């Protein structure tokens, strides 16, 4: 069963703008991960944030985690057309990983 739920389901922005995607979940987790999927391809891991961390950065990515609200957000700054993809959050509850349905991001040139 799904654990994480991403919001919005779809997001369309112009190149150069920031994109924010949110993920909510229901149970306690060990860590939360974000993955990216280009159309018709496998998923690629972007970033992992542990339950005792609040914020993490990787290049143009910024992830926050609020365990009290059971939510996370992924921010992509200065978006590029190549960022067009689906983005999934995955909650890892002690080797039980669950994926959400994803946010479809379109970045227009």
């Amino acid at each position, binding site marked *: 069963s799904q654990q994480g739920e991403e919001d919005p389901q779809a997001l369309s922005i112009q190149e150069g703008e920031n994109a924010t995607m949110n993920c909510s979940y229901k149970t306690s987790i060990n860590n939360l991960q974000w993955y990216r999927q280009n159309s018709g391809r496998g*998923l690629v891991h972007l970033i992992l944030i542990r339950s005792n961390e609040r914020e993490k950065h990787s290049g143009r990515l910024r992830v926050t985690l609020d365990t009290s609200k059971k939510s996370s957000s992924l921010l992509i700054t200065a978006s590029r057309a190549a960022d067009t993809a689906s983005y*999934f959050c995955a909650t*890892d509850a002690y080797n039980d*990983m669950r*994926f959400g349905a994803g946010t479809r991001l379109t970045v227009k040139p």
Partner: protein
Amino acid sequence: DVKVTQSSRYLVKRTGEKVFLECVQDMDHENMFWYRQDPGLGLRLIYFSYDVKMKEKGDIPEGYSVSREKKERFSLILESASTNQTSMYLCASSLLGADYEQYFGPGTRLTVT
């Protein structure tokens, strides 16, 4: 780089056929997973394995079986394919333990007619 390969990118099979999907990883990972991905439903876990000859059911194991005879290879078997098994199938692997990412193969888009 970790590489996870799947035997086919696209596959078309007829209802009732036995279907084998193969997955191979080259990084000596203990864990291997099979997911199916359908629009609006995200990834759903079919089976996973944490060691050779070990397997655990995921959320939707009905109509599927798996085989792991060697550490690097994890096979998904559709015993008698049905049209509702038309989907994208994704294989993944990871190290055993906490806080490890999963590495995915490119996926197999299976159509059952």
